């Protein structure tokens, strides 16, 4: 799985992108977010408050219950502030 981080999530985690192999019990976006917290202190800090974390699966917005698989491109970022 390819993971992308943007804005202050990228800064707190310390990388813009990483590849992970998904454990078989990680089946949803929600599972993934909780699991990612354990990867480093940076991940834990960035993902402490999930109310300010948005997720895209293959470049579409996704919700906690949406499925994820090892082939996906998953992006994590704060609420957007463009325009």
């Amino acid at each position, binding site marked *: 799985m390819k993971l992308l981080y943007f*804005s202050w999530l990228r800064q707190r985690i310390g990388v813009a992108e990483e590849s992970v192999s998904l454990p078989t019990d990680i089946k949803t976006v929600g599972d993934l977010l909780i699991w990612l917290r354990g990867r480093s202190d940076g991940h834990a800090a960035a993902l402490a408050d999930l109310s300010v974390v948005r997720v895209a699966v293959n470049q579409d917005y996704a919700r906690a219950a949406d499925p994820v698989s090892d082939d996906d491109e998953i992006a994590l970022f704060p609420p957007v502030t*463009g*325009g």
Partner: protein
Amino acid sequence: MIRVQRDDIDIGAELAALTGDNHRIGGIATFIGTMRDLSDGQSVSAMTLEHYPGMTEKQLDAIDREANRRWALEASLIIHRFGRFVPGERIVFVATAAPHRQDALDSCAFLIDWLKTKAPFWKLEETGDGARWVDARDSDDAATARWGETPK
């Protein structure tokens, strides 16, 4: 049509290209978003707009198609810039052209409201106290909500 670019936006040239020789058009509504030198009461000297290449284009294209589905448009254009900006610079340009003005006005407002809350861009402002990421505004969510459901 949508475009994500670093370069400045030439409004006159974009409008000319958008409408071309289409004589079915009776009204063109546009919105230009520019960088202010004040944000949340604090002076801002510059700003960097980060985005998610690939997803940006995909999302802009989806909402452009949605606007054309909801309103009877002859042409539409979204241009969103990224990179570093100083106050006064153009950031985003939306233009919709229609036989009837209400379709142009409504679809233009729809697109800019949507862009503010769904296009994957993040603002990093440079202030006297250092750089800070801009927080999303609840008022933007409210403005988008009045248009109902949009495609994911």
